[in-house]
């Protein structure tokens, strides 16, 4: 991939005032992304526009495909040709991408998919925020699998977590989602882009096996992740969306092959959960009520928690940075002192079900928000007061 000098030349180190979409594009470039395929869609278009301008400057490729199905397919192709690749979209495009997201999962393709979430279903509210696609990210493509999804709640995190998304996708050979709501995507804030050498960048493992007939491109290491050969290096390997064995050969009639492959695709994420999951806990140690939130709702949640503390209520915030795999343990370990959870989301109740599952009987209050406005801290504060009365 890139040399240190090349890397520093392309990273816009310094202080910036930019929106979340642009910060996301810069994060991708800093992570080594050199291929972007996409299709215009509000409110993610600014990512495409930034990449169209920046990719030629950094010797990368920008291509506007005919739709999001093609965009996702092209991203997988580029990744198999050895280039870090990304696409960005919103709900309707995300729906179209699901088919080839499944292909990326099955062929263990490192790639990043950004979804700047707007209001759905269908065309919904293109310019309004939403957090309605978090379950679609988890279960949108058919079959059984594990993916990784991150939820930035600031413009700085749009940069940082896009870098992290690439690192995770390269480490685990899995599609990684950056699930941002429209507010985080369009909000302007100060962003610090570090010096290139201080940005942690992970590149996929390369095979050490010899070329030839016995080469097994899907033979995992002990971390359950196979090193990745890329096209054009003499490995002459085959990859398929069909259930396959370690050598990439279709195995459509073997229960054993199906079990071995699909279970490993799940296990390589499940067994590395501790390394993957990030949450930010604020004043949770002694909390009697915990707000569990992500994205823009977490910012209102933090404000509400601070207001509650000012009135003597022991409130805390568990901010989900990783949505998938879901941080069960991080919720479960606070139930000995937390009497109730409050979950504000810009949907009709999606991650709240995961919180309920992990809370194992501890009451969970849900606070829905649809349309233009995010939650107000005062609304969350009211619910904090109510759950403590019960």
């Amino acid at each position, binding site marked *: 991939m890139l040399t240190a000098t090349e890397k520093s030349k392309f990273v816009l180190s310094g202080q910036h005032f930019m929106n979340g979409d642009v910060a996301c594009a810069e994060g991708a470039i800093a992570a080594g992304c050199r291929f972007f395929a996409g299709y215009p869609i509000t409110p993610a278009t600014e990512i495409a526009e930034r990449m169209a301008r920046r990719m030629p400057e950094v010797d990368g490729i920008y291509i506007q495909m005919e739709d999001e199905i093609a965009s996702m397919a*092209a991203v*997988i*192709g580029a990744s198999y*040709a*050895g280039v870090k690749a990304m696409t960005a979209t919103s709900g309707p495009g995300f729906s179209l991408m699901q088919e080839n997201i499944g292909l990326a999962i099955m062929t263990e393709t490192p790639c990043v998919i950004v979804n700047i979430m707007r209001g759905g279903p269908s065309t919904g509210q293109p310019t309004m925020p939403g957090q309605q696609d978090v379950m679609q990210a988890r279960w949108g493509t058919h079959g059984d699998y594990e993916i990784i999804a991150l939820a930035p709640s600031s413009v700085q995190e749009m940069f940082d977590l896009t870098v992290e998304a690439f690192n995770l996708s390269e480490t685990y050979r899995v599609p990684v989602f950056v699930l941002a709501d429209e507010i985080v995507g369009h909000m302007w804030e100060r962003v610090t882009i570090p010096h290139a050498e201080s940005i942690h960048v992970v590149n996929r493992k390369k095979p050490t096996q010899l070329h030839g007939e016995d080469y097994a491109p899907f033979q995992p290491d002990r971390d359950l992740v196979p090193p990745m050969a890329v096209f*054009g290096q003499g490995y*002459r390997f*085959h990859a*398929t969306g069909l259930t396959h064995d370690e050598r990439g*050969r279709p195995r459509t009639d073997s229960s054993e092959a199906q079990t071995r492959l699909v279970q490993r695709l799940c296990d390589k994420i499940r067994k590395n959960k501790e390394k993957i999951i990030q949450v930010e806990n604020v004043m949770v140690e002694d909390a009697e009520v915990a707000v569990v939130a992500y994205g823009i709702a977490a910012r209102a949640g933090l404000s509400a928690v601070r207001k509650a503390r000012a009135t003597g209520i022991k409130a805390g915030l568990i901010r989900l940075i990783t949505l998938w795999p879901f941080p069960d343990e991080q919720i479960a370990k606070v139930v000995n002192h937390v009497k109730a959870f409050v979950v504000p989301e810009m949907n009709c109740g999606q991650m709240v079900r995961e919180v309920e599952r992990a809370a194992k009987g501890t009451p969970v209050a849900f606070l829905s928000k649809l349309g233009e406005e995010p939650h107000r801290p005062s609304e969350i504060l009211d619910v904090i007061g109510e759950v403590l009365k019960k």
Partner: protein
Amino acid sequence: MTTEELVHPYERFLRKGMIPHIWCEGCGNGIILNCFAQALDELNIDLDNVVVVSGIGCIGRVSGYTNTDSFHTTHGRPIAFATGVKLANPELKVAVISGDGDLFAIGGNHFIHAARRNMDLKVICANNFIYGMTGGQYGPTTPLDAWTTTTPYGNIEHTFNLIHLAAACGAVYVARWTALHVRRLTESIKKALQKEGFTFIEVVSQCPEIFGRYNKMETPLKMIQWFKQASQVQHFSDPAKAEITPNKIVVGEFVDIEKPSYGRLLKDMTTRAKQR
């Protein structure tokens, strides 16, 4: 004769671990693969630089059988996938070998846009008039009145003329042969492999088992006889008139033009962008 002596002349083009193939006896897919291998052989192309991409369907399995880097995509998406491969590594020769349903029904949008962009891809379509893998449903090239499992009263849909479509979308090289025209097909593949830009070769191919059997051509031979009797070589004739009917299959080269490829324009644009 010992078994060691029984080596196929193109064995080095085949991924032995994948053989035996899944195709039926008498299928045209093997002929297409053979012609592709012969073209690579005669051009002495380094197989390490070739990527074969296919979609879903009977011919979709071809990528598994070629001893190159290869990828078997989702249904209809080989061209979109191949676009990513070619752009990410322009040194690679990227061939898409897929079927009529894959490329022109579910994947039609990708075909027309890749042709419009003049993306440097070598597309070969095995047109067998039918969805064979799923047991014989009609597709975008199924002839009018044909019997398929989903046209039990005869097909009432007009067909795509793939040659006309490819030419109209901007492909720089367009040819049609049947699986009978082995020598000419090989020559066309060689031409396409050497030409920069989006090339398209339609191979009218026999599916005796799923198509012919139900449409008065019960054996592979009968289908081949149809190709032999009906084919008319009409080089550079009007693609709009390149019909396929029971009595006439217009074959030949239809388009061979020069036009800057996407890759070339991209390179120029990148140079301009970096000078700013």
